[in-house]
Every structure is written in C-alpha cells, then in structure tokens.
C-alpha cells in the first residue's frame, strides 16, 4: 500500500496530496454531539455573567446585594442588608463572603435548586427587576464548589415557615444541587431575626486588587444612593460602615404586565394559545387577554386583516399565525404602559443625592505599620434637581431619570450611571451618558465656559469639558425590561434608538432648572475668590500706606477688610473716581452721588445684607452661603423637617 501511494505521488503528485488531506480531514471532523449541563456551560463561559478573574468578588457582591434588594422590594419590606467580605486564607486567596437580608426568603423545599441550579428563577416575568437570569447566586455556588472544599451555607426563613439551614454544593456536571446537610434552626442558633429573610455564606478563591476593592466600595455606596430606604452594613477587613436609612418611602414595586403586541412573535403567540388550551376560547379572545393595549375589536380587526378563517385557536398552523404577527407589526397600538417599571422617583433619588455616602479610607500609621480604617461620610450638596422622561426604546417602554447635585460638600465632577437601580461602574467612557454630557452645553445653565474656568481654575481634570470643572454630580438612571447594554458584562449602555435624545432633553431640562441656583452658587464662589484675593492683597496695600504716611495701620486694615466684605456682598455698589493729583471738588461731588446710590441699594435689597458677614477663611463663607441656599429649595426643606 505504502509503496503504491509513493509511486502514485511521484506520478500524479498534486491529486494524491489532495486525497491524503481529505482522509486527514475526515478523521478530524468526527464530532461528538453532547449535551452540556447549564452549570458546566456557565462555569466554562463565566465571562458571560461577568465572573472574570479580577471581578469575581466584585460580581459576587453585586449579585448578592441585588438579590437581597429584589427579595425585599417584592413585598415592600424596608431592606436591612448585612454584607461581609473577609479574607479567610491569604496564602490560598480564599475569601468568605456573606450576605444577610430581611427579604421574603425562599421556601425550604426550593432552596437547593434556587441556590445551585442555573436558569432557575422566580424572576422570568415581564417586569423590571435587578436580576433576571437566575445565574448570579448559582455562579457563586458553582465557583465555590469548583475552587474550594467548603460548602455553601444557607439560612432561609420564608413566611409561615421555620428557619432552615443547608450545606450545599453544586454538581456542576448535571446542574443539580447536592444537599450535604439540612436542619431546622433552633431559636438559640438563629441567624435571621425577623419574620423572613435569607442569608448565604460562601468561600471563594479570588484575588482582590486595590482597583477592584475600590470598585466594590463604590458599588456599595452608589447602591445606597438609589436605595436610601435600605440599611446596608458593609464589613471588611478594613472595618465596618453602615449606610443608614434616610427615608422610609419605597418605590412602588413593579408589576407584571402582559407583553405589548409590538413584541409579539411566533413563540409568544403560541405560548399564549397554549395557556388557553383547556378553555374554549377563540383566537380573538386569546389575543385580547394575552397582550396589553389589545381590545376585543382590535383583535378582531387584526384577525380579519390577516385573512384567517374562524376555527378553534389550536387549529391554526404556524403559517397562519405568522400572518397575525406580521399584521401586529404594522398596526398602530397605544404606547406600552410602564406599570412593570420601577423608577427610583424624584423623592427617593433626591434623598439619595442629598445624603450621598462616600466611603473613606483613613490611613493610620501606628507601631505595627500603616493600617486603614473604613468610615463613611455624607456629602451634602448645596442644591439638587430631578427630571425624568418616558420613552420607547427597542419597542420597550423605558424610563430615563436624571438628577443633579451641586456644590456644598461635593468636591468635583462625577458621573453616576444606573440601570434598573444597579450602579454601572466600568466602561464609563463608552457609555451613552458620557456622550450626553459632552453634547449638552453648560450654557443651558446660564453660565459660560469662561466664568467656570475662571472660578475653578485650580481644578485638575484630564478632560477639557467645562462641566467637569464644576463640583457637580450627575446621575442617570435608565429603567427598562430590556436595557440596551453594549457588552455582555452589562457595564455600559449603548446609544440605541431615541435613548440619547431623551437623555439629552432630560439633562438640558435639569440644567435649565438649576441655572438660577448655579448662577448664585457661582457668584458665591466668585465672592469667595474675591474675598481671598482681598485677604491676600490687603496686607500689601496696608504696608505700603503705613510705611509712607502716619496712619493707624490696624484701624486701616480693619476698615479695609470691612469695606471689602461690604463690597463683595453687594452692599457697596459704586466706586469713586479719585482724580489725581487732586481735585477735591470733583471728588466731593462724586462722594455725594455715591451716598445717594448707597441709600437706594440698601432699600432695594435688605435680604442680601447677611449674606456674607464674615470676612476670612474660605470654609466659613460657603457654609454660610449654603445655609441660605438650602432654605430656598423646596425639596431640601422637606427633608430637613423629617
């Protein structure tokens, strides 16, 4: 055989080489068609759920907090969440993460599947929730099973049930839970204090870089901004912080809704028909009962236009049904309703914005080297504003919410992005919100680039966008059942459909709303800068004068400082013209005129008098200013009362 091939190769070379290649290919292409368990698929493709190397702990924190919040909000329970992240074994990079909430818990017989089996979820309905896919918690369970020999520890108490405890692991090959141990928890070992709740504790193998650690801190504090009604305690090796509850108002829970006809496809239609199998309902009835904005008449009209004969609903074949789908795509319906969406709302976002927590790491250097100590600080802005829009993106109703917090304790520009109340922290540069901010001019605030740059010339920003010089926090929240994420990691939103247009109009609206206050704030800032200039330059002037002529320099200095304060506060409007070398007559004339002017001014605005009555440091001036400012804004007054 071999010799024969060789001679043939020599004789008709190329043809033979082809044959050999074909043989080789045949051997390769032998494919085994296996079914992979969901769990194995997700573990192999963990990036789909965002669980990639560096981000494992970040994603775990995220998933656990989101589950807990969802679990509370579904029954309108004011959330109390306790999150713990501690290093267990530094040598092997093992971390213990645990999260406890006072949500509705999970019925005990469902706990193992709900925790361990991928694509098992109580959230597969048409309404806005944080988690959707039934993947997050399972991912933690699978990673824990894969990388460690520790079981996942779960405590759950759902209503009218006693508290139960599980040791669980995932059988990654079959997507089935393994219950190692199960017991009812006695009162003295109870982990859940209230009527219901859920606690999970897992050991994970992961590395935590300082960058990721900061992202976790950011994530928790930003979560507290949009969930000011939740108490979130966060405990790490660096300390413990508690984000207090600042309001008891909770957003209306989202409700499940019927799909909109624009979203109808063969699958949804067949599913609808299947739902009515046992009842003798016509197609017309099924349509009007299964889709929103679909009246009986409208359903009839659609069936007629599709040209379908009247027969029992289950007798239609796919070729007939697709006509119904097609007709729906070309029919006008009312806009979808938004009951299934749960925006943050003006009240709650405003509470969040006015009591924004920021986590601070205090470095303490002691005998045992430097130690960091965690603490939380509330940033109180001078003013806030809110605006929202309802729009249709990708045929889905979408709510855009936008908020602004300005001045006060806010040190510099920052953009906050949320999608369905989840903070987005990565890929800010490619997010549609970034584009929106660049494209909406700050002149809408009634201030010019030049003014801003003059007053905030010391601000160090890499960007040349003027708005980033301002001490302003801009918040965007997009809620929809189908957020147009740019990537599978769900960290940035694409500029799809009219989304950007609506976001821009929202932000412009806000800029206009705050323009008067920002102008005032900027004026305050200008005054502050001016007062600082006076403070720095008056000594030079006093020295020059007192060295040249006999004068009480102390008295002169005090008088000049008073003068400067009065001038900055607007009490003193005109300056005299001093004519040199000297012409006293003219001088007196001007002075007289000036005194008259002064009287007028004082009459005109008595209110301004107290605005700045303290000359001196930079800190005292804005504080005073802010106080008067806050009184002028309604929202803030309400909050203060509470």
């Amino acid at each position: 055989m071999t010799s024969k091939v060789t001679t043939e190769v020599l004789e008709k070379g190329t043809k033979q080489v082809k044959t050999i290649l074909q043989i080789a290919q045949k051997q390769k292409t032998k494919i085994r068609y296996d079914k992979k368990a969901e769990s194995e698929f997700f573990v192999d493709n963990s990036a789909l759920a965002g669980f990639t190397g560096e981000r494992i702990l970040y994603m775990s924190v995220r998933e656990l907090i989101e589950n807990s919040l969802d679990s509370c909000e579904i029954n309108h329970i004011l959330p109390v969440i306790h999150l713990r992240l501690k290093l267990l074994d530094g040598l092997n990079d093992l971390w213990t993460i645990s999260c406890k909430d006072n949500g509705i818990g999970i019925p005990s017989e469902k706990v193992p599947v709900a925790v361990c089996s991928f694509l098992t979820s109580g959230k597969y309905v048409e309404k806005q929730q944080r988690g959707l896919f039934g993947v997050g918690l399972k991912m933690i369970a699978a990673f824990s099973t894969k990388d460690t020999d520790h079981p996942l520890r779960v405590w759950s108490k759902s209503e009218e049930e006693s508290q139960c405890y599980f040791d669980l692991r995932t059988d990654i090959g079959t997507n089935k839970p393994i219950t190692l141990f199960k017991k009812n928890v006695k009162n003295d070992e109870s982990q859940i204090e209230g009527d219901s709740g859920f606690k999970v504790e897992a050991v994970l193998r992961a590395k935590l870089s300082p960058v990721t650690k900061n992202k976790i801190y950011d994530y928790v504090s930003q979560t507290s901004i949009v969930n000011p009604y939740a108490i979130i305690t966060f405990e790490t090796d660096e300390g413990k912080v508690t984000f207090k509850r600042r309001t008891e108002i909770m957003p209306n829970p989202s409700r499940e809704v019927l799909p909109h006809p624009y979203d109808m496809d063969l699958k949804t239609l067949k599913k609808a028909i299947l739902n009515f199998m046992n009842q003798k309902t016509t197609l017309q009835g099924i349509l009007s009962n299964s889709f929103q904005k679909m009246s009986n008449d409208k359903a009839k009209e659609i069936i007629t236009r599709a040209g379908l004969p009247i027969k029992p609903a289950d007798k239609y074949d796919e070729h007939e049904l697709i006509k119904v789908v097609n007709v729906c795509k070309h029919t006008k319906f009312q806009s979808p309703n938004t009951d299934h969406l749960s925006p943050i709302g003006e009240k709650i976002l405003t509470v969040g914005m006015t009591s924004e927590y920021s986590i601070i790491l205090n470095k303490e250097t002691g005998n045992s080297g430097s130690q960091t100590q965690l603490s939380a600080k509330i940033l109180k802005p001078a003013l806030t504003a809110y605006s929202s829009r309802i729009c249709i993106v990708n045929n889905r109703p979408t709510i855009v919410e936008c908020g602004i917090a300005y001045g006060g304790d806010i040190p510099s520009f920052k953009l906050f992005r949320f999608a369905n109340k989840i903070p987005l922290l990565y890929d800010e540069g490619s997010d549609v919100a970034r584009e929106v901010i660049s494209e909406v001019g700050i002149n809408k605030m009634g201030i010019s680039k030049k003014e801003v740059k003059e007053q905030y010339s010391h601000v160090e920003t890499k960007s040349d966008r003027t708005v980033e010089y301002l001490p302003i926090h801009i918040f965007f929240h997009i809620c929809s059942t189908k957020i147009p994420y740019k990537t599978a990691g769900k960290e940035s939103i694409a500029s799809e459909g009219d989304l950007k247009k609506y976001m821009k109009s929202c932000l412009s609206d806000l800029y206009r709303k705050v323009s008067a206050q920002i102008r005032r704030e900027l004026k305050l800032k200008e005054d502050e800068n001016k007062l600082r200039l006076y403070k720095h330059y008056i000594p030079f002037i006093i020295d020059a004068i007192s060295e040249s002529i006999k004068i009480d320099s102390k008295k002169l200095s005090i008088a000049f400082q008073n003068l400067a304060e009065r001038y900055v506060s607007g009490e003193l409007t005109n300056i005299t013209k001093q004519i040199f070398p000297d012409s006293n007559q003219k001088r007196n004339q001007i002075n007289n005129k000036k005194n008259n002017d002064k009287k007028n001014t004082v009459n005109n605005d008595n209110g301004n008098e107290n605005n700045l009555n303290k000359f001196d440091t930079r800190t005292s001036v804005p504080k005073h200013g802010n106080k008067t400012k806050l009184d002028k804004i309604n929202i803030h007054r309400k909050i203060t009362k509470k």
Partner: protein
Amino acid sequence: MAPKDRRHQEINNKIRKIMKNVGDDILIQGIMPSLEIPKVGYDNTVWSDEKRMLTIGNKTVQIGPNSSKKIPTFAQYLVMANAIRKLLDEEMESTIRGMYYATLSTVGDEKNQQKFWSGQDDSDDAIKAIELLTNVPREEFSVTSKPKGMISGPITLSVGGDLIDCNLGSRATSQLIPTNIRDLEIVKVKADFVMVVEKDTVLNNIRKSGFIQKYNAILLTGSGEPDRATRMMVKVLNEKWKKPVVIFADADPWGLGIALRYKIGSESLSYDSDRLVTPNSKVLGMMFSDIYEYNIPKVARLAATQEDLNRANDMKKKPWLQDKRWKRELNLFLEHKEKCELDAFFKYGFKYLADTYLPNKLREAGVI
C-alpha cells in the same frame, strides 16, 4: 528720614498724597479707593499739529480694588510707589530690574500661592503707572534702565561732575550714554550736526572710517529701540544746542518705526513726548526707494516676513502717518515685499556706506 534733594522731597510728597487719599477713602469716607490713571496706548494717542508729535489724550482708566483682576494691580501700584519713596529717602538709584527685585514677594497661603509679579513686565508697568500718577518721569525717581545708547564725536559730557570727552581719538570706541540723566550735563558741543543710526554695528563702521573727523559730526545710536536717555540727548542737542539731527535706520518697517520714535514719538510713551521727541529731526534713510535707487544686489535684500507686512499695514492706517512720503515708501514696501539693512552697503565695499551713501544723502538734504 527725608531726602535732602528738594526735587526728591516733592516727589515723595506726591506719593504720600496718593497714599493719604487711599487711606482717607478707606478710613474716613468708607469707599473703595481708586486711582485714576491716563490711559496709555493707541486709542489714547493723539497727534498734535502744533507740537508735531504724538501726545496723550484725555482717556483715563480707574484702577481700584474692585474686581478680581484689579485687586492685584492696585496692590502692585501702591507697593511700587512705596518702594520708590524708599529709594528716594535712601538717596539711592536703581534700574527698573532692581525695582522688580526690591519688591519681589509671594502672595497667598500655602494652598493658593502665587508670585506678586508674574514677571518684570508687571513691575515695569507699575513704574509707568507711578510716573503717570505723579506726572514725574522715572529718571527723576532715580529709576533707570541699563544704558545702551552710544555716542561718539566732538562733545563733552559731565556725569556727576566727571568730564567725559566723547571725541575719542582712537576711532576704536564709543561712549555709553548714561541713563541717570539727572546727573548728566552737556558741557561743550563742537560738532556741526548730529547723525543718529539704528544699530551700533553701523555706528562702529562709520566711526572707524573717519566720518566724524571728516564731517565734524556727532554719531549716536540707541542700539535698536532707543532708551529714554538717548532720545532726550538727541532732543537737547537739537533744541538747546541748535544742531541739525539726521536719522538713518534699516529699510524695513521696524527700522522706520525706530526712526519715527525720535521724530514723532511712540504710543507707549506718548505721555512723555515733550521730553523725548525731536520734531525737527530728519529721517533720511534708509528709504525703501533707496533699495532700487542704489540698486542693492538681490542677494543682499531680504524677503519681508508676514509680521513685517502686518506691521507695515498697521502703520499705513495710523492717522499720523498719512504724510505722502511715508505712504509712498510703505506702499513700495508692500508692493515689492523686500527689505534691506544699512549693512547691505558693505556689499559695495566696507567704506561705501560712510564714503558714498551717507554723504550723498546728507548733501541732498543740505546738511553738508
């Protein structure tokens, strides 16, 4: 300690008066002080037919601590005024750079620290402001600039009592024109006329050729932009000693500008023209037309830069340069876009400038 010099006492009194007015405004009147200063620059420069020179108009500016920009300026002016007062009290003299150093300091706290002067330009401006406020030229404050003007020829100067004969026999050097003009006096002038050239290199060439001895002339240069002492020297020689003055500069807009500095004055010093400008002086060269009349070889001509052209266009628009002769010359320049330095005559031999071109021009003008 009061200065002995009466003139110095007067100046110090003026400065004290300024300080007192500012102090009174603050303490007694309770109003923002302000200094009214004549505005310096193109839009407040006026041509005087009577004086035949540029003078300052009526516009003024108010400098008071009433805006973020003016607070530092106001402080700078007062600090400079005080420094000048001290200088006079101590009977010392200083250059403008010395005044800059004497008043250097930093402003603000650790967080917002900046320099009191952002550069010497700032302090020069402050000195100018004090000149305008007191109506006294800075030379009288004993604040001078570094000397750069040079003089050669049959003239004897007295500087603080020391006699200096500028008719240096060696033909090898010139005398610097002192800038402390209060100590300067002209004792004796034997020359028939005064010739001002733009640059010292040209002056050296002419002096070496024996021009001074041959034509009994005084040679003078400001080494580019002339300082005040040089301009005053020219004026005194012309008006007090009745010597004709002729001016030669390069054939480019810059050179023409310098020549006119002597003859009609400048916008930035329009307030001091009475002391500095010599209206009877004659600008003889080098004219743009000379490039073609003397057929300067192409290789020695320079192409005009955009800056030159802009400058020429600006000059054409100035109301005081509407004279036919200047317009014709500027148009010639704008048309050919060529300029030429006096040094270009060296192409015809090192003595051509002094032996041929200058005598020709002087004869045309009837000076020799």
